[in-house]
């Protein structure tokens, strides 16, 4: 019987994740071939099959150096936000939890806004400084939340949530303050708040994309490794303790991993909302609540969702729309749909 159960698990794991992987690849090719400069799928194939004689040089430049980094960024951000959403929902035992709930994101934006307003963020140096400071900002925010929530050497999920909300409000005020004293830089901060994947990489800054990707991949693997414990935790703190899990240490581990992942994403693309909230819920309908399947599946569906949302953002209007606006417009109604048709245990 146990053998039969395991076979079923593996079959489901493979079906869900393989089909999502195929969706990511298909979505990436679609996104590579669509853009305001009108290229076709044939151009993409031409570029990849090395037949550059038939495609003009600018086409391969656009596809490989403008769209490809952007799509990779969409994959990285989509995966890290969705997986963090899954983890937060389990850690806080709250279906409304999203990656921004504990103030990590406000920390990142406050850091970036600080650098921008004081004019340090100029040139190549600035291109390195802004993401770095915002990454540090996100980690500091998380540490602050953890310290605030730590009462008598223990951190409970309710106090964690409250501490997160407070720190979020506080940092939100800091961002507002910086916005009110900024002038020319204002639209850059607003763009960060709306979230967009148009980060302009140069030859000297492209490694940041690889760091973000590496952190996301590493985080996802570490979380997958501890996914059985995550399953126990999502049953409630008591059951997890009875199963012999050191909740305090495990939670600290989870928060640390997730902060690294969110920091990596937010520092490059700002606050892209709703991905980390709806993708985990939608994925659960596909994969079930078992974190062993849910974590890779959420990473892949987050990637697909953000690739498609960004393709819309790039092409739907004559002027580019920030992707965060697209995810919110698509995500809001979708979340309501999930809420109305919810099944116990899924949302």
């Amino acid at each position, binding site marked *: 019987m146990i053998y039969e159960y395991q076979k079923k698990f593996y079959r489901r794991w493979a079906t869900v994740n393989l089909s999502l992987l195929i969706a990511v690849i298909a979505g990436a090719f679609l996104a590579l071939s669509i*853009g*305001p*400069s009108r290229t076709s799928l044939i151009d993409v194939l031409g570029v990849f099959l090395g037949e550059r004689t038939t495609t003009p*040089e*600018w086409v391969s*430049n*656009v596809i*490989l*150096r*403008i*769209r490809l*980094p952007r799509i990779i960024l969409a994959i990285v951000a989509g995966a890290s936000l969705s997986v963090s959403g899954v983890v937060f929902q389990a850690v806080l035992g709250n279906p409304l939890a*999203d990656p*921004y*709930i504990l103030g990590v*994101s*406000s920390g990142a934006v406050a850091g970036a806004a600080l650098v921008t307003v004081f004019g340090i963020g*100029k*040139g*190549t140096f*600035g291109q390195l400084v802004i993401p770095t400071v915002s990454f540090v900002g996100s980690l500091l925010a998380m540490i602050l939340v953890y310290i605030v929530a730590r009462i008598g050497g223990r951190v409970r999920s309710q106090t964690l949530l409250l501490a997160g909300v407070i720190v*979020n*409000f506080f940092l*939100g005020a800091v*961002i*507002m303050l910086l*916005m*009110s004293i900024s*002038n*020319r830089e*204002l*639209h*850059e*901060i*607003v*763009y960060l*708040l*709306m979230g*967009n994947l*148009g*980060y*302009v*990489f*140069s*030859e*000297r800054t*492209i490694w940041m994309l690889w760091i973000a990707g590496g952190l996301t991949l590493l985080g996802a693997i570490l979380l997958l490794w501890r996914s059985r414990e995550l399953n126990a935790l999502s049953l409630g703190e008591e059951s997890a303790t009875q199963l012999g899990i050191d909740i305090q240490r495990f939670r600290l581990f989870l928060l640390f991993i997730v902060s690294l992942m969110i920091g990596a994403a937010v520092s490059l693309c700002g*606050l892209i*909302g709703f991905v980390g909230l709806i993708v985990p819920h939608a994925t659960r309908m596909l994969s079930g609540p078992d974190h062993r399947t849910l974590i890779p599946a959420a990473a892949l569906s987050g990637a697909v969702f953000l690739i498609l949302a960004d393709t819309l953002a*790039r092409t739907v209007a*004559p*002027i*580019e729309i920030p992707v*965060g606006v697209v995810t*919110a417009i698509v995500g809001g109604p979708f979340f309501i749909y999930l809420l109305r048709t919810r099944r116990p245990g899924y949302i």
Partner: protein
Amino acid sequence: MSSIIASVLAGLCIILSTSLSGCSKDDGSGSSTSNAGISLNDALGREVLFERPAERVVSLSPAVTEILYAIGAGDKVVGVTIYDNFPPEVKGKEKVGDFSNPSMERIISLRPDVVFISPTQKTERLARAETLGLKIVAVHPVNLPEVYEAIKLIGKVVGEEQRSVLLVKKMMGEFSQLKRLVSQIPRGKRRRVYIELSQDPFWTAGKSSFVGQLVEVAGGDNIADLPLPYGTINPEVIIQKDPEVIIIAHPGIKRDEVGRRLGWARITAIQTGRVYDDIDVDMIIRYGPRLGQGARDLFKRFYPEIVNPDSENTE
């Protein structure tokens, strides 16, 4: 999350109004001068009445300040923004804040007869200022004809109508002189130009803005085809249109770094070294008396091989 969204929306509103894009409000020129006083329609479409020309002026727009000085009304300026830097005499004037957040108290204490604003300030604040007895005139020209009208309107308010008409004539003369030079270049040979007003995201001027029209006057073929006066442009469009000249009109990046942006290396402007970051941005984004000089500066960068328009100017 909700607070973040609220702040985003607030920010968006500010951006839509602050950023150069702005609403393309007609800069209504319908005005009349009679014994009864001066009546005019400002950029917000309101009728403003003056019994006599204004003697004390607060300018919340550096462009308006430049115009006031150019038409000989510099002495009447009693308050400016912290961004005002031209002409040099303006340094000694009282600063009342920036254009979106001026100090009402300081403005009132200066007892101005008129306050020039760009309609980026929220309308409620404007209304409140009017109940305090301030006379507000909104100026917001989007294209060159509207710039001329705005200059004449400012002239009317301060009683320097003739000099404002002369200033407009002088600017038009500067432009037509450039146009003569440019007309010798066949349409097909005009250089393709990308003018960058900001990065992250890339922000440029379209053909319906005075900045875009300046590019055209200077003989540039603007690669941006925007539905609005100003807006974002996707880098892939820049690469596709392959500009021959790139003007960096913001302090965010130095010319050497532009070519290091991923995918930009093969753009003609970068291959031939025609990326310029040395233009005086104020001369092209302020709708003031220096636009002619700004256009000449652009021309010099578009066509360095053609005779210097400044030298022709001196004959």
